[in-house]
């Protein structure tokens, strides 16, 4: 019994020590975050102190310096102060708020610019793709740089130090990660997105509104890849959505107006049609924010968001390239160049969409978009027959297939080979490789 007692005592002491270690680690992370904030302020010179730091570093300002600061604020923001719905109280709340913008691209840039200009007290920016942000207001923007740290951990550390988070990222795994993080830390999340000619905007996890996982417990698959480099984007569109995100952040920070909680804005640029739709309230069964959440902070740190969504977080990730064809069905750009130089009659089929073909194309190629390939097979047979007749009566015609990056062209070659074009070959790497390896002057887009 005595020995058993010792073992029990030992176990409970070990557990107490583990709990103390966890508490200390969490406290250390919090302090590290504040250190980084203060250090970035020192680097940036005249930045105002964040509210938490200001509380501890009591300024021994003389009455004249206090009144001078007040006069400066009145002068700078007087057009805000003149608004009865906003006024001095609204501006005061805004100056006491701290807002983190995640992503500093097309969406995040206007968000940060307007939040800074409107007088947010403490503004942070996280951008995984860039460590330096030279093109933004330096005086009042605190840069969070987590070189080498895992993105999940750095996001959590950043979000902890702010009251409100703005999601201005451009990919699916980041959106899940940021939403989960905001739920676990109980922060409102201003989420905007834009691709092609449409944009969306909502406020998650605030006043009973759902989180991202409430709406999408399973990751969406999408008719298009939704990256702006693949689908294009009207340049002004993230500006529109970004400005509206800044507006929502201000509403949440000041409690003025009605934020888009439980409502989603959908903007169609070409028609200027703005639709605001009711969305479900927070789902009681949501595994992150529901009545019995099963997703813990530990789950969050260990969760593989890229695997869950089957898509990369960063455009720097290698674009996944398909590998559908046997070796003898693919030809490198250099080898295709030899075919061209030799003057051998052949057919070059460009399977990009027609609006891509109009941007830049190879001489003598035929444009048959992949989506139309099966119905255009008779046309291709006619073209192949015509080419064959220029090959001294040889029966077969070599067919080369090219696209932008060498993925659609493989799909096309599979279809062609199944339909009698036994000598169809894919030009590996498409125009991207062609421009790199053969013709640097080819217009890449």
């Amino acid at each position, binding site marked *: 019994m005595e020995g058993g007692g010792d073992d029990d005592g030992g176990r409970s002491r070990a557990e107490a020590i583990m709990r103390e270690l966890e508490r200390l680690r969490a406290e250390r992370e919090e302090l590290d975050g504040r250190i980084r904030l203060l250090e970035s302020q020192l680097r940036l010179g005249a930045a105002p102190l964040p509210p938490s730091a200001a509380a501890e570093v009591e300024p021994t300002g003389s009455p004249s310096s206090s009144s001078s600061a007040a006069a400066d604020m009145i002068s700078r923001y007087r057009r805000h102060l003149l608004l009865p719905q906003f006024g001095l109280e609204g501006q005061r709340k805004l100056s006491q708020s701290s807002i983190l913008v995640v992503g500093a691209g097309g969406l*995040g840039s206007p968000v940060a610019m307007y939040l800074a200009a409107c007088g947010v007290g403490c503004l942070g920016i996280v951008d995984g793709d860039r460590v330096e942000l030279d093109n933004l207001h330096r005086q009042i923007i605190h840069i969070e740089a987590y070189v080498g740290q895992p993105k999940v951990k750095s996001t959590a550390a950043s979000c902890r130090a702010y009251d409100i988070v703005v999601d201005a990222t451009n990919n699916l795994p980041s959106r899940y990660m940021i939403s989960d993080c905001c739920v676990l830390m109980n922060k409102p999340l201003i989420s905007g997105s834009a*691709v*092609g000619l*449409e944009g*969306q905007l909502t406020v998650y996890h605030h006043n009973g509104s759902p989180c991202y996982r409430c*709406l999408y417990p399973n990751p969406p698959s999408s008719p*298009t890849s939704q990256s702006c480099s693949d689908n294009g984007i009207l340049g002004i569109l993230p500006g529109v959505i970004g400005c509206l995100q800044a507006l929502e952040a201000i509403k949440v920070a000041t409690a003025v107006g009605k934020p888009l909680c439980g409502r989603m804005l*959908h903007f169609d640029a070409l028609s200027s049609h703005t639709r605001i739709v*009711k969305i479900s309230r927070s789902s009681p069964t949501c595994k992150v924010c529901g009545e019995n959440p099963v997703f813990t902070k530990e789950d969050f740190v260990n969760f593989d968001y890229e695997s869950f969504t089957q898509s990369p977080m960063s455009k720097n990730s290698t674009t996944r390239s398909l590998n559908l064809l046997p070796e003898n069905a693919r030809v490198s750009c250099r080898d295709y160049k030899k075919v061209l130089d030799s003057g051998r009659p052949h057919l070059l089929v460009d399977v990009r969409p027609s609006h891509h073909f109009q941007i830049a194309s190879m001489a003598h190629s035929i444009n048959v978009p992949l989506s139309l390939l099966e119905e255009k097979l008779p046309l291709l047979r006619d073209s192949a027959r015509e080419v064959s007749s220029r090959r001294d009566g040889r029966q077969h015609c070599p067919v080369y297939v090219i696209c932008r990056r060498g993925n659609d062209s493989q799909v096309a070659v599979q279809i062609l080979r199944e339909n009698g074009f036994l000598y169809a070959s894919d030009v590996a790497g498409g125009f991207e490789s062609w421009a790199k390896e053969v013709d640097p002057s080819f217009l890449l887009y």
Partner: protein
Amino acid sequence: MHLTLEFGGGLELLLEKSTKVHKVDLQPNDGDGKVVMKGLLAWVKSNLIKERPEMFLKGDSVRPGVLVLINDCDWELCGGLDAELEEKDVVVFISTLHGG
């Protein structure tokens, strides 16, 4: 029953000529003349979707990431698959966007 169907967020690419707005006239299948969302989805799949139906439907419902709105209200709040439609309702299908 006359309905207006709209597709956005890239879903229109699955339709003929990427047309976003469709005014349709559905004949109710069942005896009591009702049209519910489950039937509408099957009708859309048969009559409007021209390519990659799996990008629109998964089983009997829409695939994850598609918001369905009935008169600008989330269909989850109207009964989901069992939501009953009325003359001149507007049903919108929007894919969530995550680009930026």
